[in-house]
């Protein structure tokens, strides 16, 4: 019993640390990537200690973003405007960050590993209603942003908060419909079971990944996911040119850092969801529990531990690819207008999602998938 507890605690801490570190790295990638892509003067040459230059690489500036930035943010004055609701003003950033972080508890990072005769699932909370858990925590995310805007006693902030909550509610529906069609396809609410169902190949060479049978659901989840994380082209809640900084206008120092951190943690979450539902999660193409079975009949035997490790690596590679994709979108797209945003959500994604769900249901019933 107590060793179960220890394993559970270790898994929870490892998952949390992985997410936090990945989020911090994304922050760095966002700065340097944008500087590289848009030739932004400053971010592409600032370098404390010049680690990259000494190694003959382009300027990395890791110290700036990961050390100097966080030191600056956490030593700045924590300003609360007059007339603000002090309690909610302090609570809101954490109310925003908490649901995102706890969602990662149900994410399977890999297949099982065997530790001294014990089989350990590489998932912090092996829950068989994981998709419901996910939807519940995603729904909680609205409060932090909405209350942050309201508690600041600032009109720009309130407008940002209202925009954010309307946007998140609208796109949650499209996201839910996309997830629903994947649940119907796999016939389970368990994320680990979904990953297992995506093992193997079709026609002898095509990996059985969700993207190949549900491309429309992938688009729905990708677009709605970016809208949920309030990033360009859906960054109206914090649109600098209209609302100063939207819902976090009146935040500074550590609390503002928490809001910013939430945004990047959401990017990681969207990437993880896309990986899990559509790209096989920890599945490596042609890799089975005993090693690689390549299409030509070639076999490469591998021990179980190596297979599990490769799975975890594959999961992270896929997640990183989608994280980078979302960051790149930011630097090539303009912001939408609010009516365009609402039209896309309600008249574009919602009908498409409904059609996809009905079509999936028909196919599942015709194929005899329901017991």
């Amino acid at each position: 019993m107590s060793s179960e507890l220890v394993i559970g605690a270790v898994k929870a801490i490892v998952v949390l640390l992985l997410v936090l570190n990945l989020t911090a790295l994304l922050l760095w990638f966002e700065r340097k990537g944008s500087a590289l892509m848009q030739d932004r003067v400053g971010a592409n040459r600032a370098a404390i200690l010049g680690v990259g230059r000494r190694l003959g690489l382009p300027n990395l500036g890791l110290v700036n973003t990961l050390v100097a930035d966080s030191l600056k943010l956490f030593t700045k004055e924590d300003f609360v405007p007059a007339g603000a609701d002090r309690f909610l003003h302090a609570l809101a950033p954490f109310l925003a960050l908490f649901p995102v972080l706890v969602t990662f508890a149900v994410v399977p990072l890999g297949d099982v590993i065997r530790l001294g005769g014990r089989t350990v699932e590489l998932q912090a909370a092996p829950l068989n209603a994981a998709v419901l858990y996910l939807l519940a925590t995603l729904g909680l995310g609205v409060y932090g942003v909405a209350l942050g805007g309201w508690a600041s006693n600032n009109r720009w902030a309130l407008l940002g908060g209202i925009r954010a909550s309307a946007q998140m509610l609208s796109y949650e529906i499209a996201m839910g419909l996309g997830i629903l069609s994947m649940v119907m396809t796999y016939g389970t609410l368990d994320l680990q079971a979904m990953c297992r169902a995506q093992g193997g190949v079709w026609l002898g060479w095509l990996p059985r990944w969700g993207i190949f049978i549900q491309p429309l659901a992938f688009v729905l989840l990708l677009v709605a996911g970016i809208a949920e994380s309030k990033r360009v082209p859906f960054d109206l809640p914090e649109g600098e040119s209209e609302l100063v900084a939207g819902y976090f206008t009146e935040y500074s120092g550590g609390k503002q850092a928490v809001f910013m951190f939430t945004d990047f943690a959401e990017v990681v979450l969207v990437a993880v969801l896309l990986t899990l539902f559509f790209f096989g999660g920890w599945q490596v193409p042609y890799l089975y529990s005993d090693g690689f079975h390549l299409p030509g009949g070639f076999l490469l035997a591998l021990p179980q531990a190596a297979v599990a490790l490769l799975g975890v690596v594959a999961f992270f590679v896929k997640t990183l690819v989608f994280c980078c994709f979302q960051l790149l979108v930011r630097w090539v797209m303009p912001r939408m207008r609010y009516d365009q945003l609402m039209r896309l959500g309600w008249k574009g994604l919602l009908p498409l999602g409904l059609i996809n769900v009905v079509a999936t249901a028909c196919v599942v019933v015709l194929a005899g998938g329901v017991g």
Partner: protein
Amino acid sequence: MPAWLFTFVAVLAVLGALGVILQRNPVHSLLALVLVLSLIAVLFIALGAVALGFLQAIVYVGAIMVLFLFVIWLLNLETEPREGGRLLVKLAAAVLAAMLAAELAALAWRAAPGGAAAAGALHQGANYGSMAALAKVLMGEYLLAFEVTSVLLLAAVVGAVALARKDPGAGPQSSTPGRLEPPLR
């Protein structure tokens, strides 16, 4: 579910419920209600009704309460002054409260002796509380009620949209300012 955990969550929920009616700021009341509903979801999950608990969190905490927040903002509700109110209203409220208290007491009195046995009888089968069990009941035994409820909700949505339109006589062209699209070229 251990008794101490149940007591802890239940006491928190009751405190939250008191917060809903004692707070004077509507947003604070709403947050207290969010707390109560989340704790009820926790109770559902801890008692084995996992799917129901998550649905409670998704529907009430994730959707309905956010709409309440919108309503509070749109109606621009301010902190409520503590007024006396009319005597008749007070009297009616007192009667209703007494009736509710009597009902709760009667329930508690009747449930007390066989409480544990009744709870045991509820646990039918291994997948009690799972999504599959819930879906079978909803889509089988209560199919008609379930579908009729959804039609009712749809009618409510259509009615709300009809009421919310500023000028029912005017066509959609004149009542949607979002039509200001820039020319293509």
